[in-house]
């Protein structure tokens, strides 16, 4: 990108496949209509016009009149020019951890990472996907570990969260930097934003990825769970382990095989081969370590500094982790994507 002065500058205009259509139509035909869209909402985060989610699908009502045709969406969409990631990716350390301070889905190492980075002064806020009483996700800016007394902030929600549109706001507000948590597709979206726009490179300091096999649209999963007899007012935790979807309620558990929910897996997940969030600074998941621990993959120098801080302060217990245990799910995602291609 060539720059002349503060009052004159150049923007590279991305290529269009459909030359006589606006960029949103290009995005729609290449990504959305082909069911490749992961609903990471990177496009919605950057769109100055109004890309949003309509009936579970990324859409742009009135795009004919409202799309500004700037091309920002196709510049940042991780699936417009798709370079699928897979495997374990590069890492500095592969370990298991359990936070002594927080409760979470597994070992709450995700929460520990963000809070520790905040205490180190690396970031001044972390974005968390909380939930309301109906288990729909809500985004929270956490600026103080005391906010984590809201117990719904930790733990896994098996439905999409609007992390990226909130990240854009956080980037505008933050002074020192933002820490963010996301599934592999969200992590890829963040990296795309950072690749394209310096403001995200400067301000997004820590990206914690979550291992992810699949995700569900809110309406689909909530209806499915209700049909299975899950009472949301009593639901305290949802979990997928060893092929079973387990809903823990205050008065019992509802268990079924995840394969039963195969049909409602969001279509964009079926093409995804990235299980471990290869592009994150650190990624966490439950497979690969003992119960009660989070498997932690430390990938970058930034994340290394944070885990060293956690160790030095004694905020977590560490245990053994085995990368080989991830092979099955990594392979499963690859196979599923290949089947879809055929």
């Amino acid at each position, binding site marked *: *990108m060539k720059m002349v002065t503060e*009052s004159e500058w*150049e923007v*590279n205009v991305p290529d269009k496949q459909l030359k006589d259509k606006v960029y949103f139509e290009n995005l729609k035909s290449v990504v959305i209509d082909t069911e490749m869209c992961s609903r990471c909402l990177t496009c919605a985060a950057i769109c100055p016009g109004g890309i949003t989610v309509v009936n579970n699908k990324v859409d742009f009502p009135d795009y004919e009149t409202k799309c500004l045709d700037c091309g920002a969406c196709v*510049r940042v969409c991780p699936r417009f020019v798709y370079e699928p990631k897979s495997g374990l990716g590069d890492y500095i350390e592969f370990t298991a951890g359990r936070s002594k301070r927080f409760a979470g889905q597994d070992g709450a190492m995700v929460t520990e990472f963000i809070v520790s980075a905040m205490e180190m002064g690396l970031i001044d806020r972390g974005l968390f996907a909380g939930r309301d009483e109906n288990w729909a996700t809500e985004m929270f800016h956490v600026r103080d570990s005391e906010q984590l007394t809201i117990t719904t902030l930790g733990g896994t929600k098996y439905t999409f969260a609007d992390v990226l549109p909130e990240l854009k706001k956080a980037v505008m507000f933050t002074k020192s930097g933002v820490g963010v948590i996301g599934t592999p597709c969200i992590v890829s979206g963040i990296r795309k934003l950072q690749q394209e726009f310096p403001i995200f490179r400067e301000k997004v300091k820590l990206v914690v990825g979550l291992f992810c096999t699949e995700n569900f649209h809110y309406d689909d999963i909530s209806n499915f769970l209700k049909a299975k007899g899950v009472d949301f007012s009593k639901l305290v935790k949802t979990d997928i382990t060893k092929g079973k979807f387990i809903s823990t309620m205050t008065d019992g558990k509802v268990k079924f095989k995840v394969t039963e929910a195969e049909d409602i897996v969001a279509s964009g997940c079926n093409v995804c081969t990235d299980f471990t969030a290869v592009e994150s600074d650190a990624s966490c998941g439950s497979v690969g370590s003992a119960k009660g621990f989070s498997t932690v993959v430390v990938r970058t120098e930034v994340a290394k500094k944070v885990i060293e801080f956690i160790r030095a302060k004694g905020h977590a217990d560490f245990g053994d982790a085995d990368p080989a245990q991830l092979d099955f799910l990594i392979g499963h995602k690859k196979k599923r994507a290949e089947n879809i291609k055929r």
Partner: protein
Amino acid sequence: MKKVTVPEQSTVEKAVRHAAAIGVAVKESVYPLTATVQYPRQRKKMPDNFRGYILFDPEKCINCWECAFICPANAIRMKEAPNKKYYPTIDYGRCIFCHFCIDSCSGGALRATKIHDVAYKDMDEMLTLTEEMIEPPEIIREDKKLVEYQIDEKDLRLKKTREEDNLIVEKAPPPVEIQMVSQCIDRASCIGCHVCEHVCESGAISSSIANGVMRMKIDTDTCTGCGLCVKECSMQILTLVRK
């Protein structure tokens, strides 16, 4: 506790003190040293940049809403006019006369007067509609003298003249004018949506596409520094700087 004792004074000393006191009393009755202005028969001369009642000129309004946004007392509400534009109304029950609205008005549509004595019957009447802000409000003038404070090295004196002050400031003293222009602080983060170009009232922002490259330009000579583009930029990478 310390007891205050009256100092012993001779009769002569006492007589001198009393004479001095009587002297001051006589002087005050002949040439009083009060600072009170006998309003409404007298009116104090206000400086031309006095922050009084506010007038509005719709011709000059660029509909930027800045007055309403900046008002710390929330006294300004924008109301839709028949021409579909939104113009300010001021609730004088709330206005604190800070004149931030006037200072922030980039079109020069809002203007100050020296009027500070408008009477209202009730709170509702204090809500001043746009059309009531175009002409100065009706006030009753009973003042026969114009009073000016003058400060010499010892005292504050009142200078009274038989003049009627014009409360409508025809030409406000020019504020220290700070010329601002819009500038891009993070050119590489521009997404090229050219919303800035669309909202620019003065046509200072332009864009052109050639060979897959969009060239954005802010003409610093035509830019009025109104800040609309800064507010609308979705990446918040525009800012106003001194020219």
